[in-house]
């Protein structure tokens, strides 16, 4: 089926099988490999992207369902190589180690801060509940998101 999407402002059109997941479409067909795959059950959140303003896990959506959608991924956060405030805060607060969960974590934090620019710590924790990190223990991630609001 023909799928036309806009990802980070750029338009792509591809012929895809209905069974293809959005995450595989992004990674394998569009070569946007920033979003990752960490599970096959929808638990880990490494594939989180924003589709038409809605944060979701791109491993639980078919690529054909995204036809006509405006998609935002981690690759679209920085502008001309300049990190945005959230990305910089992640670096400043040592909120990443291996960096594998980071793209999904950043997208969840991005969606959180759009909906709630001044979240409490509890709201931050709830906001990244769908994202697993195996390195950091989350404390620094929470600190980074908090710092990005200041």
């Amino acid at each position, binding site marked *: 089926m023909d799928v036309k999407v806009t990802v980070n402002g750029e338009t792509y059109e591809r012929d895809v*099988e209905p*069974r293809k*997941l959005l995450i595989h479409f992004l990674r394998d067909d569009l070569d946007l490999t920033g979003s990752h795959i960490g599970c*096959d059950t929808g638990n880990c959140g490494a594939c989180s992207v924003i589709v038409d303003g809605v944060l*979701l896990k791109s491993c639980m959506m078919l690529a054909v369902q995204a036809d006509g959608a405006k998609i935002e991924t981690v690759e679209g956060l920085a502008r001309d190589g300049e990190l945005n405030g959230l990305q910089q805060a992640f670096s400043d607060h040592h909120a990443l180690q291996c960096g594998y969960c980071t793209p999904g974590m950043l997208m*969840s934090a991005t969606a959180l801060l759009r909906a709630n620019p001044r979240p409490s710590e509890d709201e931050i924790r709830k906001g990244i*509940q769908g994202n697993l990190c195996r390195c950091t223990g989350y404390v620094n991630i929470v600190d980074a998101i908090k710092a990005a609001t200041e």
Partner: protein
Amino acid sequence: MLLREVEYARPASVQEAVRLLSDQEGARALAGGQTLINVMKARAASPDALVDLNGLDELKGIDLGSDGTVTIGAMVTYSEVIGSAEARARPILGEVCAQIADVQVRNRGTVGGNVCSNDPTNHLPPLMVSLGATMHITGPGGERTVPAEEFFLGVYMTAAGPGELLTRISVPPGKRDGFASVAIGKDGTCIVNAAASVNGGARVALGCVDAVPVLLKTDSVEEDAVRAALQGANLDPPSDVHASADYRRHLAEVVAVRAVAQARGKS
């Protein structure tokens, strides 16, 4: 991660969706996909075709009737329930939806999908039973309604049969409701859950202990009465890696008491 081959259709109306579902035996409705797509990834289920209900405005929206009845479209997401002023007329709806999984899943998962998948660990089947909700089903033969307590037929099976669609759920007015669960991690899969509504006596619906929610009605809302009802119910819950049958039976009583206490505490 890799699904079997599947056809995909995006109907423009509920009528077309029903036609697509009835024309092809192996067709299944795709709601939020937060369960179905995962099951398909595991190849535990492989429908021949998916009929995508996303985009059907007829299945969207939450209405608050003049009598206080809240009517929720089947394709309303958990996040939409949480954010809806209309749904707040029956506060437990948003409170329970906020306990389901995580932001991403709540943004995509739907009320209709939750009840129609009828996984015994789901949150909404016991809730709808305790609330005495009415399920509106559309099929080739037209519309019909089914009380929630008759809607759930077995594991993954409901009264919405092949070729039929759940279109909306009506929840009668009320406020004195509770929900308690023991889950795997915060907001994780339930090991046992219970929903309770208090109106004179209590309606307590238990999840995870049988193929369908187990409804217990008590005349009194006192703790002893709830415990007695649980003990008299002769629950025969399954054992699994998370809980033995005995432990689940014990927890059922604990969460039932908590849910009723929560409901009693509301005015």
